[in-house]
């Protein structure tokens, strides 16, 4: 069976086509993406992002179909992101999916964005039953599967980790191209001095807004006093040190809550998904933790970590194969759609 997936819950518009050959691993036929990049110092507004998606979606669908080399008659269903995400961009993509469904006479499948990430990560890495760390600009969750649902063990109590990084990038007015988090990662590689930041872990939950406020204060201090020196080593403190301190602190928190969930459910596999999951320092830290527990870490590269259409096509097709469809009248989208609301019929 073959499905096409449309994703546009945030600033990336993705279209992917996947095939599930009987008894074989899934086959990615095409997976393309176009990102709405806002100017430095600014985030992406829902209105502009939706406009971007609307103007690109037809082009991307055509390109994906051509790249995959499939005919409309080969496609079994049209999958789209039902939520969670930003309202206006979600709506734009849902309209495109409805249009394709009516135009081609195919069934619609509404997909939970988070479940899309998890299923694609499992498919690509072959991780069987891992603890999942889902980290992106909008979500921070530690998830494990139990009895037909992806259950959330821990999550951010306020802003998502990616949002913390994105907003600090705005404070520093560094480029949002290709992604603010990527540019912070590059800067952090040059950092050496670890500045004191709050460390906010509460059980398996964590909090990032206080850290963002603190690092913003430090950035303002640095701007006021560019000659600021570390009192112990005497090194001059730079913005690279701020990025380094921020990354070291928030990733240590993420690895810690993941480790706690692993100890709690008795698993030694961990899968990292979501845009922040493409950060190599996070992957490295997670690997060190997993090694000490006698396990291993699974991560994917930016093609599958960062929002994409193929994961929606994949998770949608898994549901479609169990008989799940979304009738046109119910093909809505929603900003709030928790991972554990989805009944996972396709797993034991």
């Amino acid at each position, binding site marked *: 069976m073959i499905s096409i997936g449309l994703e546009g819950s945030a600033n990336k518009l993705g279209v992917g086509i996947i095939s599930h050959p009987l008894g074989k691993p899934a086959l990615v036929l095409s997976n393309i993406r176009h990102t709405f990049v806002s100017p430095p110092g600014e985030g992406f507004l829902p209105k502009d992002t939706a406009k971007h998606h609307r103007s690109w979606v037809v082009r991307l669908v055509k390109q994906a179909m051509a790249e995959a080399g499939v005919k409309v008659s080969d496609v079994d269903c049209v999958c789209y992101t039902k939520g969670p995400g*930003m309202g206006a961009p979600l709506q734009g993509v849902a309209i495109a999916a409805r249009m394709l469904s009516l135009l081609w006479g195919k069934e619609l499948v509404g997909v939970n964005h988070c479940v899309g990430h998890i299923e694609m990560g499992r498919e690509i890495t072959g991780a069987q039953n891992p603890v999942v760390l889902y980290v992106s*600009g909008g979500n921070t969750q530690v998830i494990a599967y139990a009895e037909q649902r992806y259950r959330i063990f821990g999550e*951010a109590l306020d802003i998502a980790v990616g949002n913390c990084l994105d907003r600090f990038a705005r404070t520093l007015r560094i480029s949002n191209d290709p992604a603010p988090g990527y540019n912070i990662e590059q800067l952090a590689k040059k950092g050496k001095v670890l500045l004191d930041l709050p460390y906010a872990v509460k059980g398996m*939950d964590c909090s990032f807004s206080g850290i963002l406020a603190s690092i913003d204060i430090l950035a303002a201090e640095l701007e006021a006093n560019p000659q600021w020196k570390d009192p112990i080593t005497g090194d001059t403190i730079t913005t690279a040190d701020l990025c380094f301190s921020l990354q070291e602190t928030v990733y*240590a928190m993420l690895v*810690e809550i993941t480790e706690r969930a692993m100890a*709690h459910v008795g698993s030694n596999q961990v899968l990292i998904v979501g845009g922040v999951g493409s950060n190599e320092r996070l992957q490295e830290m997670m690997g*060190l933790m997993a090694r000490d527990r006698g396990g291993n870490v699974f991560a994917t590269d930016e093609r599958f970590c960062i929002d994409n259409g193929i994961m929606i096509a994949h998770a949608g097709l898994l549901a479609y194969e169990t008989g799940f469809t979304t009738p046109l009248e119910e093909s809505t989208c929603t900003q*709030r759609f928790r991972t554990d609301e989805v009944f996972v019929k396709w797993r034991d």
Partner: protein
Amino acid sequence: MEVPTAIPAIEPVAEQPTESVPRPSIFKHPSASPPQLVTQGAEALLYRSTYLLPTLPCALKYRPSKPYRHPILDARLTKHRILSEARVLAKCRREGVPVPGVYALDESTGWLMIEWIEGEVVRIRLNEWLKRRKDAGIEEGVDDAELVGLMGRVGAAVGRMHAVGVVHGDLTTSNLMLRPFSKKTVNGDALAEDNILDGEIILIDFGLASQSMQDEDRAVDLYVLERAFGSTHPRAEGLFKEVLVAYGKSFKGAPVVLKKLEDVRMRGRKRSMLG
């Protein structure tokens, strides 16, 4: 106190090949029994050893340095957690909250020696109980007085801890021990355990605990426990309200905390939204 002639042997857990950092000297101390690994938690390794006398069992909690963490951050967290755990345990003990007593510690090398608690964690007992019922074909909500009783004891224990100004920070069913009530004997034989949910609740693992009287912190504590219940024991989730009922009666400020818990729950639900 009843002093056993020798501490009973336990099944040691195979140790994972871990870091090359040398163990603190407590591990080779001549007066202590060689520590046997009991469990590898998230942050700490738990060993069983003895304290002062070869007949007095103790738990040795060792926080090895985490290779993934920056050394400065690692040292800061380890020191802070060992000290705050010991302070909180001492305070709870003084105020009559059921926790293990503190014997010794060294925050710079990262270990804490505490009283050994017999029994099993609630998570294991509860899962065993749920499994037995499932196998016997008993439906949810039928004949569950044992579970209601356990939930009540959990709520009361958490309430007692909050009443003295301590919040746990990591309440899960893995951090609640069930210590068997002193064994009833008939003709010298121990009675067969027919109710595996019996026992006194002992709160353990105060590694993330802090001292706070704020309703917000207490409510977050309850929220963490509620979520852990839901995700670890989905089939017992319906009875979590019994924990809250018992909690509500446990100290004067408890009803306010329960009110606050509703706010915290609402916040938690928003999480699926973009920040």
